[in-house]
């Protein structure tokens, strides 16, 4: 573990240095919002972003990807082995990646996801500008300890560069004029962290996190499901923008010779009408209400029991993506707690 001190200008020089060696995905403006995209030079990199439209999940589980190509009975797996740097990941998004890593490496190890993940170096960044809907303070993900290769924290006008792993060291290697951060500066990050823990709470959350699975257990017939689902478009926006949603569909696409082709994996979501449609035509979550309820059970109970933490990191993307305004998890968990 080593700590360096950089000015914003040093930092951009470092990013330009990285860009001469490796693909770097960083946050850039997209209209009046922000998105992770491939960087061409450090000048477009935004470290003051509030939240990106899509989470960085897209670099590990892209919206569409080829799993294999086939010809007759033969097939070859398609695995993307290109190394890359993900620059400026906020703690809540990193917490989501931590959950996804567990999901994709347990049971059936997913080589497509895990190869990308293993080839990625993650430079995390403590939040500087809170987004309007961020409630990661409620979810214990406003600040993260570990999981990153490097963590950047802006303290006053300089950055503390916390190099945590071998991959992180590799990234900083060859930078001239590195200045070791004095311990007082390193320690002053605690002030930033405490502040972020308390200010990244756009919505109150009444139940404690450990209380949520039990609360759901006894709320299957709660009126909130029907009330909210009444307005649901089943448009899947809430799950498409979610950093902890990972459901997918797999379809084959044939070439014109009709015997060769590709097997494509694409994002799917439990809020979509035919998500639970099975062979024989039975849909075991036919109504909007069942699907709406399922999302909360999955986040607050099923996946939570599997990965050991609530499968919501409080990024607030679902809140802003939902046109009818029914996707706020805090609102729903609070209702369950109140009644």
């Amino acid at each position, binding site marked *: 573990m080593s700590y360096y001190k950089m000015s914003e200008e040093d930092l951009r020089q470092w990013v330009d240095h990285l860009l001469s060696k490796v693909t770097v995905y960083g946050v850039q403006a*997209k*209209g*009046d*919002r922000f*998105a992770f995209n491939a960087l061409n030079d450090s000048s477009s990199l935004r470290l003051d972003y509030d939240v990106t*439209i*899509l989470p960085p999940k897209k670099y590990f589980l892209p*919206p*569409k990807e080829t799993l294999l190509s086939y010809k007759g009975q033969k097939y070859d797996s398609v695995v993307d082995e290109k190394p890359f740097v993900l620059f400026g990941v906020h703690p809540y998004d990193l917490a989501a990646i931590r959950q996804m890593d567990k999901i994709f490496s347990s049971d059936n190890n997913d080589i497509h996801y895990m190869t990308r993940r293993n080839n990625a170096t993650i430079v995390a960044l403590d939040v500087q500008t809170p987004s309007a809907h961020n409630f990661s303070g409620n979810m214990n993900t406003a600040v993260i300890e570990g999981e990153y290769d490097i963590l950047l924290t802006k303290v006053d006008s300089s950055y503390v560069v916390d190099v945590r792993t071998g991959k992180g060291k590799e990234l900083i290697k060859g930078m001239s004029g590195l200045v070791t951060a004095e311990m007082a500066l390193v320690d002053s990050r605690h002030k930033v962290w405490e502040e972020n823990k308390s200010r990244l709470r756009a919505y109150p959350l009444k139940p404690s996190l450990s209380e949520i699975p039990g609360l759901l257990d006894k709320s299957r017939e709660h009126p909130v499901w029907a009330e909210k689902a*009444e*307005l*649901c*478009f*089943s*448009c*899947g*926006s809430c799950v*498409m*923008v979610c950093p902890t949603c990972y459901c997918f569909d797999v*379809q084959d*696409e*044939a070439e*014109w*010779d*009709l015997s060769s082709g590709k097997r494509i994996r694409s*994002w799917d*979501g439990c809020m*979509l*009408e*035919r998500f639970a449609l099975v062979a024989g035509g039975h849909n075991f979550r036919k109504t*909007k209400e069942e699907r709406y309820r399922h999302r909360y059970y999955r986040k607050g109970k099923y996946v939570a029991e599997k990965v050991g933490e609530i499968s919501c990191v409080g990024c607030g993307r679902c809140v*802003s*993506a939902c*046109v*009818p*305004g029914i996707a706020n998890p805090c609102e729903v968990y609070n209702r369950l707690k109140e009644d």
Partner: protein
Amino acid sequence: MSKPRVAIFDFACCEGCQLQIVNMEEEIIDLLSVVTPVEWREAISDQSTEYDIAIIEGSITRPEDEERLKTIRDRAKVLIALGACATIGGVNKLKNNFGMDDVKSSVYGEARDMPHLSTYPTKAADEIVKVDYKVHGCPIDNREFAYIVKCIATGKEPVIPYYPVCVECKEKENVCRFEYGEICLGPITRAGCDARCPSNGAWCFGCRGFVDDPNMNAGREILEKYGKTVEDLMHRIVLFNTGRKEE
């Protein structure tokens, strides 16, 4: 399986969807390795009454169209509706919001009563005959057309998006048009276009028709939240989806 014979017929439309097939350019040769066209007014001069697959472009706007469509259906094993005019009636249904005499006067003036200018309220192909496959959109996406042709050739059921445009719009990392205070038909419109209009700064016009179960009740309540009225919404819906069952 021997190569199926395909005939393409146009009804009331701009023929832009046929043009999308012509626009496949180098892939046309591949297409011809899978099917044999026997009638296709925009591309070949042959005509035929014997075919396996009939592709219908355009909507039905006259009684005589209806008879012609039924004849085509009788001759074909498989019938494909090509493009919004055929799949949902499309922009041709705009006239259904008016009386037919007004429509005729407006378009043809003094000549309105001439026999070849007869008209009746527009219908989509499936309002008259059984349609086996639909290639949605205005115009169609020729990649989707190619996919459907390949599925038919291999005996596989094509998987066409049944969910709203929002899914693809999110994948494109667009900001929701509603966040900019605009009405967008994305939440009730069938996806499959890669959210082309919202990705290029416009709202969704609804050209692929509604999803199977659009939440129209939600539509009304949500409009208030964004300071819009049902009238604002209907103004946009009628362009491609006049008279759809959910109104």
